[in-house]
């Protein structure tokens, strides 16, 4: 890789050990993907919950944080993805002091490096939305795909170590979705029936994601007649990224790089593949219903916007969650604060649900929580969450927000979910 003077200085250790580690990590990745050089970035979003970090990862962060301030401070604004502990609620979720202790150590290290602890995966809605053509290093699949696709920014999936490295160097290897030629559509899907509910948009992302084979596939979606809302695109993108490990989509007539299909096609357009309502119904059915006792309903992945919290409060008004079912709702600290101020949190919690801030369910030691609380049957309106959570020992079902609330009140998974 070609290095400029400052990059050479980092590699030579002249700007401290953390930056030397960082640029070496980035060069290993850059060479793997045949990057020729680095591209400066304007902001970093880092995923580093304590479950993923583990004790080894936390010790690594603490070592970096011991360096002199001029060596350890991040070079661009750097914010955080949801964490694993809500310090106001962790005990009643069966999380341990050991988990909380590991979390606190990670937070202390991040603060020492100059991180802004936003603890959110909806930063593209709530912190600093990227703009068209902005080179960034985003570290959550949902935030990356939204920033790339809906906002036209440029990022690869930057997993924790690489997002941290990008924060320390202020740049990232120029490969993948930083390059014009990689942003062209490779598959075309034609939407016949417009999704209605947020979970339908998630299901659509899941249906398309299951058809894609690699990170390097870029789907273009035709047939979306009117712009979806930000929350609809959020659920669609998060599920698409989760099921398909995809970081970019074009929605023709909606997203900024695709006013028309030819704008994102190099030569001849691939044959379009039809997606219809039956595909979405089959997707819901793949998770089943069953009539079983329902242990927990989770609204998360991505964290809820203020609008989603209002919708949830409206659905819960005058109702009570079944005593043997738990309902968890996650959002960012800033949106939680707004929801508190506007009375939404109180309305949701009056019905028996719990609103958590700065966390996301699958990043909270979900296996251990399930074992501590006796939770196995889970229901969510997040297609992304039901994709992830099976590996943690849960049996998930997907439903609309309204169906999830009905199920939580009844205490049972509905016989039919779609």
């Amino acid at each position: 890789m070609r290095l400029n003077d400052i990059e050479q200085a980092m590699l030579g250790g002249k700007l401290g050990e953390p930056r030397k580690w960082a640029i070496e990590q980035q060069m290993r990745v850059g060479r793997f993907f045949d990057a020729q050089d680095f591209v400066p970035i304007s902001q970093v979003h880092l995923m580093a919950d304590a479950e993923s970090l583990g004790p080894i990862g936390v010790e690594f962060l603490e070592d970096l944080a011991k360096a002199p301030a001029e060596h350890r401070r991040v070079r661009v604004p750097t914010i955080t993805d949801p964490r694993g502990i809500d310090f106001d609620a962790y005990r009643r979720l069966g999380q341990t002091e050991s988990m909380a202790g590991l979390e606190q150590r990670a937070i202390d290290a991040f603060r020492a490096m100059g991180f802004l602890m936003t603890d959110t995966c909806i930063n593209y809605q709530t912190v600093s939305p990227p703009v068209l053509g902005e080179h960034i290093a985003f570290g959550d699949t949902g935030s990356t795909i939204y920033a790339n696709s809906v906002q036209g920014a440029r990022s690869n999936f930057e997993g924790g170590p690489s997002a941290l490295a990008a924060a320390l160097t202020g740049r990232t290897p120029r490969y993948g979705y930083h390059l014009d030629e990689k942003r062209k559509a490779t598959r075309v899907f034609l939407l016949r029936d417009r999704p209605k509910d947020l979970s339908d948009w998630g299901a659509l992302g899941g249906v398309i994601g299951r058809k894609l084979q690699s990170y390097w596939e870029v789907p273009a979606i035709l047939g979306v007649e009117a712009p979806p809302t930000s929350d609809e695109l959020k659920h669609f993108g998060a599920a698409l990224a989760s099921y398909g490990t995809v970081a970019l989509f074009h929605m023709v007539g909606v997203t900024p790089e695709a006013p028309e299909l030819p704008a994102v096609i190099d030569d001849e357009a691939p044959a379009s593949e039809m997606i219809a309502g039956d595909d979405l119904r089959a997707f819901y059915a793949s998770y089943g219903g069953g009539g079983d006792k329902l242990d927990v309903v989770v609204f998360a992945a991505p964290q809820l916007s203020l609008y989603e919290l209002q919708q949830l409060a409206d659905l819960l008004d005058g109702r009570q969650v079944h005593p043997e079912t738990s309902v968890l709702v996650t959002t960012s600290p800033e949106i939680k604060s707004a929801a508190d101020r506007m009375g939404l949190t109180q309305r949701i919690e009056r019905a028996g649900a719990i609103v958590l801030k700065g966390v996301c369910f699958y990043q909270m030691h979900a296996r251990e929580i399930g074992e501590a609380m006796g939770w196995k049957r889970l229901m969510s309106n997040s297609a992304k969450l039901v994709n992830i959570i099976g590996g943690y020992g849960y049996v998930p079902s997907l439903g609309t927000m309204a169906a999830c609330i009905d199920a939580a009140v009844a205490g049972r998974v509905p016989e039919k979910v779609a």
Partner: protein
Amino acid sequence: MPEERLIRGHVGIGPKVTGEALVADDYFSARYDLDRIQGVFSRPSHKLHGKSYVGKVLVLLGAKGGVATAWMLRNMVEMRRAPLALLLNTANPIMAQGAAFADLPFMDRFEADITKMVSSGDQITVDPGGGLVLITKKR
């Protein structure tokens, strides 16, 4: 003489190792698919469900899922709950970033579908620096 086959791939990450293959035409995510304490595949729908991956050269189609694997591989290596190496037909950045952070042998972009060239139980030498894989078929 055991049957041997040399396969070329893109230059990878990590040191040269030799070990036993564990193969499936399925995908990989440390968070979605694994019980990292027990060292087994825990996702019920995964084709290696219930199988131990510890110390094996894991051969799969590609990466799926989220970003957590980038942190998790190093923890798995240090806790001795990691595969010996990881071979994918197509990497995503997360797997490469995680392998670089963990110094875990990792390769992709082979001359043909690697999951069809190797069977579980075969011995494999993975040479990421040379972009080479030597397969010795089990008898």
